[in-house]
């Protein structure tokens, strides 16, 4: 049995980075706190580079944690997201939050949890990693201590999170009781011998697990916390919620259902399909009614989750690749959009969509990026959304899920409506009197926007390399 601790060097580095950031916080003078964000981002970038060393190495730690392309892909992915979030939150943290050191620390630590979720091939580890991520998020969501909305969001998220993770755990315990082991491989081996005389227990376990993970990725009807948490959390954390926590949820979902439960796919795929349909419909319908950009993003993310679940329902190597591809494209787009929103929020201090008015006049770059990101989310071409969604839907159709694909495209039209409403504020409405002047957007934000939009175009116009990388990664899900 292989106990090679060097496999976790990136995680150790992350932990060290978090600790050093917290320590640095004590020495950095108050008016230089923004340095922390740069340092964190730089460190994360380095670590991402380091973790590239494991590309195409397929190994594992005692069968508990697999370090394969899948893990590496998500390592880089999560670390990258964390870096972006750190950079984007610099100004925000200075203005509104205490304890910047801890703030960045938690973001970095939570990344470890996310990576663990992607890497674990064993239930206990998966659960603990999930809790690591969740705990950090509970704290980050309620980080704006004097903002009662932030506390409320934190409380809701925490209580419901604990509740649903209890459900998840109970499901795990049942699975353990059946299979007598927590290793995915053992479970899958066990289930492949036929499930006739404990099928009810299995179903119950699957439902509970899906509920727990559904909560994490915010699938209807386990989505209720999402809008409130999004709205209450500090802006940057909303972005983090909508990216890393969702992506990690899917990483775990794919790993678990691919590694352990694919043999009983016909038992659970319809559940996921149902959740997918519900999420797509409800998310996009309710999003029509939102006036707060964070809530809008929350509901639109619920809709997007629906699309992704569609791929999970017909889980296979192809669909897994498609899901991860769409996940990537969606995350990049989402980050771009949130960077724009954060920058605008830093300038105007408003989260209302109506206050986007005149963005074209006041911050052309942001406005352009906003339009691009929204088009991408709506799944229009030239941008990431079109290609990834197309491939995802095609994959689902190949698995026979015509009706899901139909719901998917219909709802994406609905989504186009509210995205266009946002765009209308930014481009059509004129700024109020005396507000026509240009805003000076910090260079960090400008750079981030451009870089992320470049990413959106890259995925949208030449996805070949990314897709093959993803395809290599997902190949290891089903061993």
């Amino acid at each position: 049995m292989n106990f090679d601790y060097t496999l976790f060097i990136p995680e150790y580095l992350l932990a060290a980075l978090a600790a050093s950031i917290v320590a640095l916080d004590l020495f950095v003078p108050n008016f230089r706190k923004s340095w922390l964000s740069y340092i964190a981002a730089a460190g994360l970038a380095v670590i991402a580079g380091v973790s590239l060393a494991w590309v195409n190495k397929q190994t594992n730690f005692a069968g508990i944690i697999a370090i394969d392309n899948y893990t590496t892909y998500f390592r880089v992915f999560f670390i990258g997201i964390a870096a972006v979030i750190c950079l984007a939150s610099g100004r925000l943290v200075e203005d509104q939050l205490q304890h910047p050191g801890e703030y960045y620390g938690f973001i970095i630590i939570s990344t470890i949890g996310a990576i663990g979720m992607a890497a674990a091939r064993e239930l206990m580890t998966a659960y603990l990693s999930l809790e690591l991520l969740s705990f950090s998020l509970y704290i980050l969501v309620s980080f704006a201590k004097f903002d009662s909305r932030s506390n409320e969001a934190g409380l809701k998220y925490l209580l419901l999170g604990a509740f649903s993770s209890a459900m998840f755990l109970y499901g795990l315990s049942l699975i353990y009781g059946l299979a007598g082991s927590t290793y995915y491989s053992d479970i899958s081996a066990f289930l492949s011998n036929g499930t006739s005389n404990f099928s009810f227990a299995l179903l119950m376990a699957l439902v509970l697990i899906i509920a727990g993970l559904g909560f994490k990725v915010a699938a209807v009807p386990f989505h209720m916390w999402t809008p409130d948490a999004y709205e209450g959390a500090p802006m940057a954390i909303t972005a983090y919620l909508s990216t890393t926590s969702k992506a990690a949820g899917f990483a775990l979902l794919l790993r678990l259902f691919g590694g352990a439960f694919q043999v009983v796919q016909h038992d659970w795929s319809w559940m996921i399909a149902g959740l997918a349909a519900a999420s797509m419909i409800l998310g996009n319908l309710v999003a029509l009614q939102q006036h707060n950009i964070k809530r809008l993003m929350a509901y639109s993310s619920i809709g997007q989750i629906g699309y992704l679940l569609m791929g999970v329902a017909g889980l296979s190597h192809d669909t897994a690749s498609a899901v991860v591809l769409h996940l990537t494209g969606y995350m990049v787009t989402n980050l771009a959009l949130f960077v724009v929103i954060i920058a605008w929020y830093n300038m105007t201090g408003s989260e209302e969509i109506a206050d986007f008015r005149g963005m074209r006049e006041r911050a052309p770059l942001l406005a352009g990026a906003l339009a691009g990101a929204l088009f991408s989310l709506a799944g229009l071409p030239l941008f990431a959304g079109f290609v990834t969604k197309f491939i995802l839907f095609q994959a689902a159709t190949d698995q026979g899920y015509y009706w899901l694909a139909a719901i998917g495209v219909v709802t994406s039209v609905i989504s186009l409506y509210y995205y266009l409403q946002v765009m209308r504020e930014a481009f059509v409405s004129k700024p109020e009197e005396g507000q026509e002047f240009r805003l000076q957007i910090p260079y960090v934000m400008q750079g981030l926007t451009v870089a992320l939009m470049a990413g959106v175009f890259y995925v949208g116009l030449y996805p070949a390399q990314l897709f093959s990388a993803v395809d290599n990664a997902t190949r290891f899900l089903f061993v």
Partner: protein
Amino acid sequence: MQSVAQGVPLEHFVMLSMVLFSIGVFGVLSRRNAVLVLMSVELMLNAVSINLVAFAVYTSPSLFVGVIFAIFVITIAAAEVGLALAVILRVFRNRGTANIDEIDSLKW
């Protein structure tokens, strides 16, 4: 050494944990005070631990993962309580209540 529990079938333990779990769920659904909701969650977690241990000792003692798992569950539960209480205190300080149905400024 000989166990004290010979004769009690596994089903009893599982049944117990299921009942306990359901009660916990009921608590979460019906209680209004955040702290009490938290207690109910604790009940659910304990139900889980019972399950895990029972399965471990009855069905897979060779590689008693269940016990380890139970330990972790307990740990996490404790940590959860601590964190939750901190948040509850923060909420109480900002709003003067810990009643979760009065904490609904975020909706729709």
